[in-house]
Structure formats: C-alpha cells, structure tokens
C-alpha cells in the first residue's frame, strides 16, 4: 500500500521479504489481556453509566469463558446482535454520540466487543491499541497524580502484552513485563521533552465529542437555602489553592467572597446578575482606586468549575480574570470546565466612600413578614440601641448570648415559618442559617444588608521554600454585610456562635465533629490537642501536607501547563526570544532527536571486549603480591597458576578455575564469549581470597 504510494513519487522501496506466517497468540498472553480489559471495564463504572458497565462486563465474561475453554470467538450472528444491542444502549442512555461519557462508553463497548470477536493475532493487537486509547481518555475525567500513575502502569502492562504477542517464543509474564518497563522507562524522558516543548496551540475540532455539562454539584449554588450548604461541609474536594506574595494572613481574615445575594424570598437568598451598563459604570469608578501598600496580592489556582463567579479575597481591588462588579463579586465572561489560574489584589476593608449610591429600598426589601413574636423581638432591639451601629451590635450580641449552637447537621425547619422556628425553637444551625437570620433581621430593622457566600479560611500547606493555602468545598461559608456610614461592613454571625470555626478553620471543627466533642465542655482541650498535635497525628498531618504539596506542583506543572507557562519556562531557560513557538519547535525536535540518537547509539549491540577480561585477571594477580608471588612479564597464565598452586596448594582448585576461565575468554573462539562468562570470571576473582592454610 505504502510502497505503491511511494512509487508514484518516484521512490522505490527496497525489496520487501515475504510475510512470515502469523502465529497464534499464547493463551497465557490472552488471559493477561483479558485481565487488563477487566480492569478497564471495572474502572469504567466510576465514569459512565453502570448499565453500560454491566453489559461490557457480560461480554467480557463471555469471552473469558470461551478463552478458558480454548475457543476463540462466537459466530457472526451473535456478534451482530451484541453490536446492535450496544449501539442501542449508547443511544438510549446518552441520546447520541456526543459527549465525553458517551465516547468513553463507546470505547469500552468497542474494546470488549472487539476482544470477543478477535480470532487472530492482529485483532488482539487492535484490542491493545484501543486499550491505550481508553487509558488515555480516562484523563478527561481525572488528572490527578494517582490517575496518571495508574494509567502509566496500565500502559506498561499493555506494552508487555504486545511484547508477548510480537515474540512467539512462549515466556513467563515477568520477563516481558521487565522488558516493557525498560522500554517505557526509556520512553519517559523523551515524553517529558515532548511535553514541555510541544507548543500548545489553541484549536477547536468540531467533530470531536463535546464537553459534558457537568452539574455544578460540588460548588456553591447561586441561591442559598438554609440547610443546603451544610451538606458541603463533608465534601472535602479541593476548590482552589492560593499562593500569597507575602505572608499568609490570619485565618479569621480569610474571607473568600464568591457570590453576593441581595434578594430574599422565604428565608432563601439569591444572586442578582448585574447588567452590562452597571458593570461598565462600575469599572470606571473602580479604576480610580489605586493600590495601597497594605494590600494583599495573591495567585489562585482554581480547580475545575463551571461556576461563573470567581472567589477573591474580600475586598477585591484588582482582578486578573473576570469582571468586578459593584458588590465586589467577580464574574467570568467565559465558562469552561477546566482548571485556571488568576491573580488578584485585595484589602481587608471595603472602599470608602462607596460609589454608586446603593439602592436602600432593594437592600431592605423582604418577602417574609415578621411574625408578631418576631415583631416584639425587633421592638426590643430598637429599644436597646440608639444608632444603627448599636443596633447591629445588639443583634450580634443576641446571637452570642442566647443558647444558639453550631451544627453540621442542623435539624429541618418548619416549612411555613422557618425563621421563627429557627430563632425561637431549634436554635441550631450551620453558617447559612445565621447569615440568613441575621440579614433578615437587619432588613426588618431597615438596615441595608445582604448575604455573602464564599469560603472562609483554608489549610496552610508549607514546605521548605513555599507555602500555600488549600481551600476546599468544606470551607464554604456564608456571612452578612451591613451598610453603615456609607460603606459596607462585614458581620459574621457564625463568629458569635462558633468562634473556633472562624479562628482555626473548618479542619479544626471537623476534627472536633468527628470526635464528638463539638459543643461539649471539652472543646477547649480538644482544640488545643488539634493545634498541638503529637506523635502519630503529627506524622499523619505531615504526610498529608507533603502529598498536598506534591499535587500542587503537579497541577502547576502538568495539569495547568499552557502556552503562558511554556513562555515562562523558556525565559527561565534563558531563551529571550519573541518567537517562542519557533524556539519551542526547535527545542522539541532538537531535544527529542538528540535523545533518540543517543538511545540508538547506546542500545546498539556491541561485541564483547576481550581486554576487559585482562583487567579482572590483573586484579587476581595483584592479590598474590602481598604474599610475594609476582607474575613475571614473560610468564604465561598457566605457568603463573602452577607457581601459585605450589605456594597455596589448598587453593589450587580456585586458581585453576580462574585461570582456565580467563584463558577461555582471552584465547578462545570469539563466538564463545557471552556475557555470563565475564560475570563468572569477575565473580570468581572477587570471591577469591588468599587465606593461609592452617598449619597442622
């Protein structure tokens, strides 16, 4: 095929030999292949629909049964039926071909059907190739270090199967695995060069399956219903990582604002998307505010998210990514499900004076009406306070002094009157209960206020040369903001109920929660145990930190590696060139070519050097020097051995063996010098020790 093509261009191939007969694949090899496909099918359960998984598993078990009975494939009609069923399954479950999950399911079914149908060696090779592809496509769902370790070892085993199939000599599984490890180990440096220097161009391939719309189940919702957020307390998935330019601020200052929710309806809060006009107006105003020395600069590496709102530290001043809005939240223009990096600058205080004038009516509007009991309470608040500021303080103190308690599993609230039920009855809640209740009370007291959702705190991971903060979904938090003296103030009612949540972070709280000490009298002691870990728990947390650090570097250098990072790498390597694509291409081909030529040169089979044997032999001769037996220049090894044997008759056997081995290598036929002969000589000489015979 290729030969004919080349001949058209006037290139003729050297005469090809005739095709060797294909051989049957070994049964043990096929069983190994079967084990790999089994793994792939089982892993598939994690990603795609379980019904597809079960179907693939059934096909796979059918083939396994055939293999064990030493048969190859079922007849064509059965194959056709199975193929039609799998197509129907995919269309029925995914409604078509589009989408990553559909693609993966298709691949899994393809590999199991192809495996079932395989008869000859080439079919099994194709199965291996589909498996390679399947392994690679699992990265679309998971790019963690663990996954790449799994995938690379999977690749290793596929390669080992291919090794066995291309060499008909039957061998144990271990030897090919070793050989394929050698191959993959040699391939890795080459792959790393290609990875770092291959220019990352942007492109779009319309024919490929499009990205699935991931339901944003782990992020923050655009609305806040009391009781919803508490569930995320147990979601320890990573939300984002932060590196600060300076010191990491104290935990109680780390309020990560994501969404501002100014609209209330029945104890639930919602975001309001700004229109373009207000955005533009706001941007002009904000750009006037310059940076102040006390501002905090940081870089955020955000995990995959489809959320439009980006978390920034309160109160954001400059945002690299997204549009800042008047309520200090930052909106993304384009949403794609990938990791991303951005920088920001923030200060702990809101800007003063605040621009554009706030809509007081909107920020005090409530759908819920206060009940008579609540009105009495509100009147009580009004009596106690002279100014708005005192009013805020009074309500805050009310939450602190009354027996409210903090819980990760708050009880459900009365549907008809959730606010009363919470404030007068259950008095147990998660941060969003307190934020909601506080804000709605503020509004009823005619103080403009709103709920802010985001994250609070984070875990500091430090290593020798860098420190960063990990913020998880479990750090999700909600708090209130009140408008006093023409600027926004943050009020976190949760701090009144559970100060340790704010001071030490969610981790400490979770630890207490798990040991069942939350809310008990031992809380102080338990907290100090957490903060000053001893022995085992310290080791454990150190290990966790190391792991976090490793995966941070991994994400920075592999998962988020893009053209910008490439340019950075180039400048670190000292290539200050404007045309970085050109430099990258040259580096890639240069590096890979050089490495390949090096491999080629290094791996070329070489004849054994005879002189190596002499080196060993001279060491042997030198051992006799101590005992004053020296080899004369004209003496042959045989003659020397005879003299040595005379001096040490008890060693004569060893001396003889070494001398003969040496002579065989040095003067024997060239074909009779495989490596192990050298090793034999080397080991014999190493083991040889001159011990004086005991005198009797």
């Amino acid at each position, binding site marked *: 095929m290729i030969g004919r093509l080349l001949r058209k261009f006037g290139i003729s191939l050297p005469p090809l030999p005739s095709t060797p007969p294909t051989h049957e694949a070994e049964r043990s090899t096929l069983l190994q292949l079967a084990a790999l496909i089994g793994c792939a099918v089982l892993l598939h359960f994690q990603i795609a629909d379980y019904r597809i998984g079960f179907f693939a598993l059934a096909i796979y078990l059918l083939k396994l049964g055939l293999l064990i009975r030493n048969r190859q494939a079922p007849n064509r009609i059965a194959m056709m039926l199975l193929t039609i069923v799998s197509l129907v399954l995919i269309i029925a479950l995914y409604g078509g071909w589009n989408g990553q999950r559909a693609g993966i399911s298709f691949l899994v079914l393809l590999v199991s059907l192809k495996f079932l149908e395989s008869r000859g060696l080439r079919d099994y090779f194709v199965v291996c190739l589909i498996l390679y592809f399947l392994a690679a496509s699992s990265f679309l769902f998971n790019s963690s270090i663990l996954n790449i370790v799994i995938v690379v070892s999977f690749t290793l085993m596929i390669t080992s199967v291919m090794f066995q199939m291309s060499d008909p000599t039957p061998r144990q599984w271990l030897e090919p695995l070793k050989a394929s490890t050698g191959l*993959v180990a040699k391939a890795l440096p*080459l792959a790393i060069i290609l990875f770092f220097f291959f220019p990352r161009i942007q492109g779009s391939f319309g024919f490929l399956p499009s990205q699935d719309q991931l339901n944003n189940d782990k992020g923050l919702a655009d609305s806040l219903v009391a009781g919803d957020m508490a569930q995320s307390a147990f979601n320890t998935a990573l939300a984002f990582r932060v590196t600060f330019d300076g010191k990491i601020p104290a935990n109680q200052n780390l309020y990560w604002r994501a969404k501002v929710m100014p609209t209330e309806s029945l104890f639930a809060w919602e975001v309001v998307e700004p229109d373009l006009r207000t955005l533009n107006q706001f941007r002009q105003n904000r750009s006037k505010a310059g940076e102040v020395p006390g501002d905090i600069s940081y870089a955020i590496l955000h995990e995959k998210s489809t959320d439009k709102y980006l978390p920034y530290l309160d109160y954001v001043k400059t945002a690299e990514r997204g549009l800042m809005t008047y309520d200090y939240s930052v909106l993304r223009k384009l949403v794609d499900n990938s990791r991303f990096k951005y920088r920001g600058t923030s200060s702990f205080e809101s800007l003063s004076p605040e621009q554009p004038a706030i809509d007081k009516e909107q920020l005090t509007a409530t759908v819920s009406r206060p009940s008579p009991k609540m009105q009495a309470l509100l009147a009580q608040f009004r009596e106690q306070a002279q100014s708005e500021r005192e009013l805020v303080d009074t309500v805050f103190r009310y939450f602190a002094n009354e027996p409210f308690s903090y819980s990760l599993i708050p009880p459900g609230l009365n549907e008809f009157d959730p606010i009363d039920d919470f404030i007068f009855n259950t008095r147990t809640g998660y941060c969003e209960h307190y934020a909601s209740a506080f804000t709605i009370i503020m509004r009823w007291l005619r103080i403009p206020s709103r709920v802010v959702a985001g994250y609070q705190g984070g875990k500091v991971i430090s290593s020798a040369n860098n420190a960063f903060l990990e913020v998880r979904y479990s750090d999700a938090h909600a708090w209130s903001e009140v408008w006093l003296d023409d600027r926004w103030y943050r009020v976190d009612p949760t701090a009144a109920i559970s100060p340790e949540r704010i001071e030490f972070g969610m981790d400490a709280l979770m630890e207490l929660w798990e040991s069942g000490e939350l809310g008990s009298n031992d809380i102080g002691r338990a907290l100090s145990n957490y903060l000053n870990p001893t022995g085992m728990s310290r080791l454990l947390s150190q290990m966790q930190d190391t792991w976090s650090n490793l995966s941070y570097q991994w994400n920075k250098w*592999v998962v988020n590696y893009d053209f910008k990072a490439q340019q950075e790498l180039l400048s670190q390597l000292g290539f200050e060139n404007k045309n970085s694509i050109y430099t990258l291409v040259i580096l890639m081909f240069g590096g890979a070519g050089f490495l390949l030529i090096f491999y080629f040169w290094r791996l070329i089979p070489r004849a054994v050097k005879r002189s190596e044997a002499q080196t060993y032999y001279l060491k042997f001769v030198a051992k006799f020097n101590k005992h004053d037996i020296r080899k004369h220049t004209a003496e042959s090894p045989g003659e020397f051995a005879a003299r040595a044997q005379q001096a040490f008759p008890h060693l004569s056997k060893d001396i003889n063996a070494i001398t003969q081995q040496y002579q065989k290598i040095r003067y024997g036929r060239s074909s009779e010098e495989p490596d192990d002969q050298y090793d034999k000589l080397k080991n014999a000489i190493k083991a040889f020790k001159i011990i004086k015979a005991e005198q009797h």
Partner: protein
Amino acid sequence: MSEFVVGRRELYILPTRVGWYYALILIALFGIAVKFDNQSAFMMLFILIAVGLVAMVYTHNNVIGVSIKAQPSNAVFLGEPALFPISLANASRKQRHAVWLICGGFHRLTSLIPGESESVQIKLPTVQRGYLSCDPINLSSQFPIGVFFCWTKRFTSEQRCLVYPQPLNLVPFPEDGSHEGRLQASSQVRVGAEDYAGMKSYQPGDRLRDIHWPSLAKTHKLVSVQYENQSNSSVNLSWFSLPSHLNIEDRLSQLCFWIMEAEQNGLRYQLEMPNHTIEFDSGRTHYHECLKVLALWGEPVKEPQPRKEPQPKKEPLS
C-alpha cells in the same frame, strides 16, 4: 560473499500495519488533547509517541550486527527438499529476540542468545535437476511491540545445491555383462575374482562388510580390507540400452535409479552417455560423479543457469 553482516546500510525499517493503526490512535488522541486542552492527555500522547519511537530503535537494533554465513549443502534427488545450512551468529552481548529468517517461501523464527550462533537448515522445494541456488535471504523482525518491522537487504548465498534426477524404475536392471564383454578387455580388473589386495584406513563409502573388525578392537581405528575387485560382477549402464520411447528426463531418471541400485549391490558399473563415458568403478566418489553427470545433462555450460528472481513480495503484516 559467503558471510553477510547486517550493517546500518543493509537495514530498512517501516511501520507495520499495526503501526499505522497506532499512528491513527495517536492522531485521535492529539485531537482530544487539543480540543479539551487536557494536559494529561497530552502527557499520555507523548508517552505513547515516545514508546513508539523507542520501539523503533529497539526493532532496528534487534537485527543490526547479526551475521549470516552460508554453509555448503549436500546434493539431493529431485523431489526431496533441498537443504541449505545457514548459520546466524550474534557476536554481541545482546539477546536477539524473534528474528525471522526468510528465504523465498521459507520462514524460520530464531532467537539468538548473546555470543552464540545458531544454524538453520533452509528447506526449499526442488523442481528441476541441476544446480539449485538458494533464494535471497532476508532477516526481518518486528520484535518489541510490533509497530515497526525492519528487514535486511537480500543476501545471496554462493552455495548451490546439486539436484540429481528423480530416480524412477521404468526398465528392468540390465543383465550382468550385457555389454561389458568387449569393454571388459580394456579393464585391468578380472571379473569374478575378489583377491585380497591389502588394508587401508576406512573411508566413507567403503562397504560395511569390508571393515576389518578385529583391528578396530585392537587399535580403535576403522580399517577396511581392500580387494583387487570388490565386485564379482560389473554392469554397463548405458543411455543407448534404454528403450527409445523414453524421453530424456525419464532416461536420466532410469539411469539414476540403476546407479543407486548398482551402488547398493556393490557392483562395479560404468555410465555410458552419448558424449561421455565414466569408466567402470564403484564407491561414493564414483557414484556421485555419475549422478552429477546425470544432473547436469544437457546443460550447455557447467555453470548453473541464473535462477529467475523470486516473484515480488507482499508487504508483511503484523
């Protein structure tokens, strides 16, 4: 050339069909990596590319440096397979896995351990009498993972195999002395006598019954007794005595059969051909000389005709 060492210029390499599929998979993976901007998929892509490239180096180095040496081959009768002994030597410290030795339609898989050589008997079918030269020999391998295959330049062995005519028994064996009466006079050897002539060391071809066994026991050397005339009869095997309806090949086959018969029975025989007569004698040398005349009968020159090139070969598949 009787020895052929596979050097860099003698070795070619191309992807196999599986290799092209592999490339296809890589292209698809590239598309996915770019489309989803997934760096791990890029990593995997490059690992697979690198595995392919390193496999190419492996495949190439699996065959380079192997030497092929052709050994002389023994004559066979037409219809029997011709055997060409070839020795493959691996003078390096590397094991060569799964190297195919290909010669025309003959395929043999070999694995060469470091420093060892292996001899392979290439079996080729015989279709006509005369000299048969070995088809060009190639080595080929797709060793590590079967995505690349390499093959060598053709090595044409100088060794030839002589193919004797196929022995056929169409006409009964000629009677003793049918023709020899007049020819016997010229021979110095008396008919019917078997006089002791002395002892000589054993040579292949001597009859078993001539071996002097007692001296084997004494000296541990094979000694055979020599007679003036080993045979009590002699026979003239003549082209002209064959019936005229036989064609040339049948005549040669018949003569061939007679020679075998005569040699087996320990007769002295002469071969009479239209342009050539081999005098009365017996023994292996004589036997082969006669058969060689038959094998090469009708060829204008003593050199073998150049064999036609083997038909073009298809591309090997996985």
